């Protein structure tokens, strides 16, 4: 059960020296599925991906085939691959870009053909120059081989691919902000409706935005067929899933696994348990935006989309951040809230002002200057960003960034209220000295 799957990570594990080259990619069966897709209709391809049950791997877990089926009829349509991986704790797309970029290019060809796209983009975050270089080289190789450009694979289908570098803005991972950025604007999210990308996306034309890992799965879905792909996974969570495990575990890293194992298995078996034999205190199950889990309530829950949602959190981008018993939860929460305060685009008042307030209050508590009323104040400000502190959030903002900053607030006041109060009553962190 805890054995890793080798689907999208197979080539890089079996051929570490050259898994990023065209020669190795083709020697291991690459680009056959892209060729095949040219003989298939849009309906066939959309249906195939629907049948596979593939869920988007960027964080929202939206069914990929359904997303494609929403594409409005106007043309030209565009495909944008979201490689703006920036959710704290997430580093899986970086590995896919660096180590197997042709897998992504082949997936892009399939997605382009399925959505009648003739110009596709990859938006790579600016802090990923090496992944971007590897991808650009793969794109160049594919052009030279005639797999991109005019008449790909000798057909009459044209496909251009442009690799675009971001410049340091987490919010551009939100698909409408990404589109604004790609249009040469500030990366501010657009209102949905009316700006659903499938209807009014890039240059106001129908646009599909898919994550790197999502697109990297496409050649495998075509190759093995939707039934076999589904069978790799666990019930509704089909296929494999890349977990990025970080923090206080003995073996951090990216792990390609099916859903369905328990958190205990992931943390203690796959990731080698907690460093130095320390106790597990809490973990974030799906990136900095997700509410935290605790051993007493969640360790034996199965890792599935539904079970995680029922327990009040999400698997998000698959980033598992593990914290041991030396961790000050106020400091951890402050660090996450600070991230969202820094990355708020500033359009919506609850987010722009609220995240900054939350950061300042947490900092005050952490420094030992906190007041009894600060706990209520955290919840009140949080409630102004995310109504009723509900999960999933009831938003007061254009995009989910603001409500994401509320997740650590909910977590520390729910599970670690005593520790928060101890900071206030004891003029600072009760764990000081215990931290390493």
């Amino acid at each position, binding site marked *: 059960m805890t054995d890793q799957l080798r689907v999208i990570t197979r080539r*890089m594990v079996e051929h*570490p*020296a050259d898994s990023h080259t065209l020669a190795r990619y083709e020697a291991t069966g690459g680009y056959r599925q892209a060729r095949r897709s040219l003989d298939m209709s849009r309906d066939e391809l959309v249906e195939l991906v629907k049948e596979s049950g593939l869920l988007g791997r960027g964080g929202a877990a939206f069914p990929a085939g359904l997303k494609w089926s929403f594409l409005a009829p106007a043309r*030209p349509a565009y495909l944008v691959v979201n490689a703006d*991986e*920036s959710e*704290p*704790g*997430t*580093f899986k*797309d*970086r*590995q896919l870009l*660096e*180590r197997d970029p042709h897998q992504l290019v082949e997936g892009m060809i399939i997605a382009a053909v399925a959505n009648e796209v003739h110009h596709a983009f990859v938006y790579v975050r*600016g*802090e*990923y*120059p*090496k992944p971007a*270089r590897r991808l*650009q080289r793969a794109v*160049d*190789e594919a*052009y*030279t081989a005639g797999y*991109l450009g005019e008449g790909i694979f000798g057909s009459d289908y044209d496909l*251009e691919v*442009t690799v*675009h*570098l*971001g*410049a*340091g*803005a987490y919010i551009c991972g939100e698909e409408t902000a990404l589109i604004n*950025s790609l*249009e*040469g*604007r*500030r*990366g501010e999210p657009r209102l949905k409706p009316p700006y659903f990308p499938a209807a009014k996306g890039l*240059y106001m034309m129908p646009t599909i935005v898919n994550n790197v890992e999502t697109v990297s799965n496409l050649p495998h879905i075509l190759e093995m067929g939707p039934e076999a792909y589904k069978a790799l996974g666990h019930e509704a969570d089909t296929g494999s899933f890349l977990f990025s*495990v*970080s*923090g*206080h575990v003995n073996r*951090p*890293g*990216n792990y390609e696994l099916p859903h369905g194992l328990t958190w205990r298995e992931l943390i203690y078996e796959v990731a080698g348990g907690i460093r130095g034999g320390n106790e597990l205190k809490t973990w974030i199950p799906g990136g*900095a935006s997700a509410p935290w889990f605790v051993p007493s309530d969640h360790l034996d829950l199965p890792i599935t989309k539904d079970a995680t949602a029922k327990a009040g959190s999400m698997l998000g981008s698959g*980033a598992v*951040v593990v*914290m041991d018993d030396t961790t000050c939860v106020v*400091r*951890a929460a402050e*660090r996450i809230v600070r*991230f969202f305060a*820094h990355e708020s*685009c500033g359009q919506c008042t609850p987010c722009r002002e609220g995240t900054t307030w939350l950061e300042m209050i947490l900092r005050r508590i952490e420094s030992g200057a906190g007041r009894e009323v600060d706990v209520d104040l955290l919840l009140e400000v949080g409630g102004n960003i995310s109504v009723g502190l509900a999960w999933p959030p009831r938003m007061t903002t254009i995009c989910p960034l603001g409500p994401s900053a509320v997740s650590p607030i909910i977590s520390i006041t729910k599970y670690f209220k005593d520790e928060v109060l101890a900071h206030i009553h004891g003029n600072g962190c009760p764990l000081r000295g215990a931290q*390493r």
Partner: protein
Amino acid sequence: MLPRTMSRWSPETRERARRILARYPEKRSAVMPLLYLAAAEDGHLTPEGMEEVARWVGLTPAQVQSVASFYTMYKRERTGRYLVSCCTSISCMLLGADEVLAAVEDEAGVPAGETDDEGVITVEHVECIGACGGAPALQVNYELVEGVTPDTARELIRWLRSASPEAVHTDEMQELFGTRRSFDWAVPERVGAVGPFPAFEPYGTTDGNP
């Protein structure tokens, strides 16, 4: 297109700008890559560089400035030759990033956000750079080093000063100053960054030739 006499850019840079524009259906989309070009041309993003970008894409300088100011990687003030960006987000913080940042600040002799008197080192703290499995991590001119310690971070600063590398390479720095990585990096490469902008060249080609 821009009359050649009006441009401040070298013929090579102008040729690259033309190639970048050709990669987008609408020229406004070229703003971001052209801003990097402008930064590379002047060492950082200057008002004149932004004006030049505005002319290439048909926007006003104010519009270009409004875009540039949204993104943290367009440095509108002169930085040191080496921009050292220390990640202090959650996963790096849990494994000692604050101590790494303090060591870098101490060795460089300046607090985060500032440049030393010699104009060699700029220190900044940044949010998550996607190196959480190799935390704590930092970047020099956006080239990554994973698994640094306060001691190896100090060594890195001293090395930048003494060796004064023309370009910094992620694989070389990882070899010298890094330990644990987020994943197996496999074969090293020797593409280096020469300033406070990402070494991603060539921008938007189709044939592998700049």
